[in-house]
């Protein structure tokens, strides 16, 4: 469980987060939704220890962010950031093998190679394994970064808008893969999403942020209703129920 309590965050005079407290459950997919500038990414960065905490505390299972050794934290959670650029000339396979760093500190073992092969397989990257990162498309690069986080093989996986740049097929495959990880390997996944349809379809738990504060949170079926979502985005949002699926309609 990730336990966030009393977290506030300011950059200069701008208050990004205002006294946020919540629990994120284990073994599930938690979607972090909300309008632009709601503080979703900041909250994610604070959870992963990428930004130092200003006030409040965050703990992941038993580890307190800010008091845990970086390596222990890296064995507990993997992070996929939003804008990732890499300066050095890396092949896709090399990038994924960096996911094993917290385990092997640069001395790969047979187990590491198995894990890397698995990551290539799962995220449909075998054909690209020996291409350089600056020679593949944005979406392919994005998938390589997710595969790297997968190879890190941690209990927690934090992803900041991983569906950006992905085409329909790869976006739904990625979500299905994350779903499988949560179900089969009991991984806990926190994911910032903009497309509400993916959130409604795949997330078990939803955390909605607005203006740096918690708007609502809870099990997906319970809290994602037209009223909540309309208020969250200040826009008319309808939920359309078909036989076995729910769609979020907001396009007109």
């Amino acid at each position, binding site marked *: 469980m990730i336990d966030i309590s009393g977290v506030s965050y300011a950059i200069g005079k701008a208050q990004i987060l205002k006294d946020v407290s919540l629990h994120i459950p284990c073994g599930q997919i938690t979607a972090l939704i909300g309008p632009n500038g709601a503080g979703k990414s900041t909250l994610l960065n604070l959870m992963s220890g990428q930004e130092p905490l200003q006030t409040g505390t965050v703990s992941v299972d038993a580890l307190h962010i800010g008091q845990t050794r970086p390596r*222990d934290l890296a064995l507990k959670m993997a992070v996929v950031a939003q804008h990732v650029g890499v300066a050095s*000339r890396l092949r896709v396979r090399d990038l994924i093998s960096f996911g094993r760093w917290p385990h092997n500190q640069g001395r790969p073992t047979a187990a590491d190679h198995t894990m890397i092969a698995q990551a290539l397989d799962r995220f449909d990257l075998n054909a690209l394994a020996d291409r350089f990162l600056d020679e593949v498309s944005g979406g392919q690069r994005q998938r390589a970064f997710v595969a790297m986080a997968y190879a890190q093989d941690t209990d927690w996986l934090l992803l900041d808008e991983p569906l950006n740049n992905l085409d329909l097929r790869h976006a739904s495959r990625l979500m299905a893969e994350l779903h499988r990880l949560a179900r089969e390997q009991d991984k806990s996944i926190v994911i910032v999403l903009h497309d509400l349809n993916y959130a409604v379809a795949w997330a078990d738990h939803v955390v909605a942020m607005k203006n740096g504060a918690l708007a609502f949170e809870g099990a997906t079926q319970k809290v994602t209703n037209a009223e909540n979502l309309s208020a969250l985005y200040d826009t008319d949002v309808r939920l359309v129920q078909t036989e076995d699926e729910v769609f979020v309609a907001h396009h007109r």
Partner: protein
Amino acid sequence: MPDRWFLILLGALVAASALFLTWGLSTRIWFILELRLVKLAGLITVGIAVGIATMLFQTLSGNRILTPAIMGFDALFLLVQTSLVFFIGGFGFVQLPGPVVFGINTAVMMVAAVTLFGALLHNNRRDIQLMILVGVIFGLLFRSLTSFMQRLIDPSEFAIVQGTMFAQFGGINRVELLTSVCLLLPLLVWIWRQCPVLDTMALGRDPARSLGVPYDGLQFRLLCAIAALVSIATALVGPITFLGLLVSSLTYSLMRSHRHALLLPTSAAMAALILVFGQTVFEQVLDLQSTLSIVIEFAGGLLFLFLLARGKLQ
């Protein structure tokens, strides 16, 4: 497994060194050999220091166009050296034994480099245009302050500064060389052990941190190492702005690898080869009609403009 290109470079370096030592050797063999050996050792030391400092800095700054020299590191070294003469006086400066002067220089240089460039790298890693601009301004500032102080001190002290400042490839001081090598060897051992973690750091600060690399602490130590390497090179032969850039872009285009265990030795060998081969050609073929540093600056400067124009600012 050593890389093919690295072995070729190493072979070329050995050949160039042999050529440098033996070309036109006829009379007073031992006397000349001894002189040349000192010079050769100096050139190789400078090559290793410049090659490795450049690679390390490019890994930290996350791009392939900025080098310590372009960012004003060696101008900073000259400033430190001049301020030493300025504050303790030319007489005191001459009284101090060589290694002590070198040690003080390096220590002050480390503190200054970490303070200035640490903060800069922390906030502006992504903004390469800004970094180049700051580098140019730093360089200018350091040089202006240096010449300002040189104007204030009296002429005899100025002569002392000048003597230490513009040691060229021709005359390498033996005491300085010995001190440099003694500092260089442990540094190289330490840097070599950091190779795997350097690969990870090249991903950038946030990704490296999320993999559990204590990035900020390492960056601090690496900046210290870079400052020491630049001190070694600058103390021995004076500032050479574009050698590092020349070496790093050649290395990257040869190696096409991200592994520092390959990149660092290759760039060191490449820099040493350019210096030794260049110096041989200048001494034997061109009869010292020009200086090596001018040609390196010319070729390197052209390359810098070319890289800028091609927009290869990554």
